[in-house]
């Protein structure tokens, strides 16, 4: 129970708390910049699904998308914004609170 009497699950950021967006945020939190294709292969989703979720996170101000050309090859590099990094840190902290409150944790 939190001080307000609500279960900590109510504090979970529902924008992050879906399997694909959680994986995206975790991947970006573990590095400074991640290339789109690397992220797609790492979290095992299709281009279109990743694009759709990236757009949601970008609109929320959690993710920054940058286009870069190396040796004339286009690449899309993704990174967490300070707001996104803070949101993910808070999200993990809530998960840990939930686990601590569990008799099975």
């Amino acid at each position: 129970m939190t001080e307000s009497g609500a279960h900590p699950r109510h504090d979970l950021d529902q924008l992050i708390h879906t399997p694909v967006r959680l994986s995206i945020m975790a991947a970006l939190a573990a590095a400074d910049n991640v290339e789109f294709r690397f992220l797609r292969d790492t979290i095992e989703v299709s281009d279109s699904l990743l694009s759709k979720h990236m757009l949601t996170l970008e609109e929320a101000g959690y993710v920054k998308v940058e286009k870069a050309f190396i040796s004339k090859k286009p690449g899309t590099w993704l990174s967490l914004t300070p707001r996104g990094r803070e949101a993910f840190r808070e999200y993990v902290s809530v998960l840990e609170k939930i686990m601590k409150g569990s008799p099975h944790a």
Partner: protein
Amino acid sequence: MNAGDDQGAGTHTGSDTDMSAGEALAQIGRVRRSVGRSAAAMGWLYLVWGVAALLYWPAMFFASSPIPRIAGIAWLAMTALSFVYAYSLGVYGHSRLHSRVALVWVAVMVGVALFGYYVMPERPSGWWVAAGLAAAVAAAVPVLYAAWRLRPWDGAR
């Protein structure tokens, strides 16, 4: 998993996605390890550059023509290949370490080059050989340190 399930009652997040806190944390851990392994792969590049520096400077200081020229061309080729390799990894992490190591390494390399150009005699012998080898080791230390910090050989961490 239902909220009322005995096994998941404490960690269920009440979300439409039906993902428990434990499952979410486990997924975060999996992704983090996978990305961390790829980011640490830059360590192999540092290791190769460390070994290359140990070979390059003795070749420049002590070898006769055409070996210094070949070493110079190989160095340029390695620089180009390094950019390709770093880009192909698709992940860039440890930026603070990279920038610091790059700064120190460039400074040391310039210092060693100036030493070779202005201080080292044309045909070094005796203590000059030891000094040349010491300069080569000094040039390798920053990148070998970076390789050791990243420890790509450790695999999943």
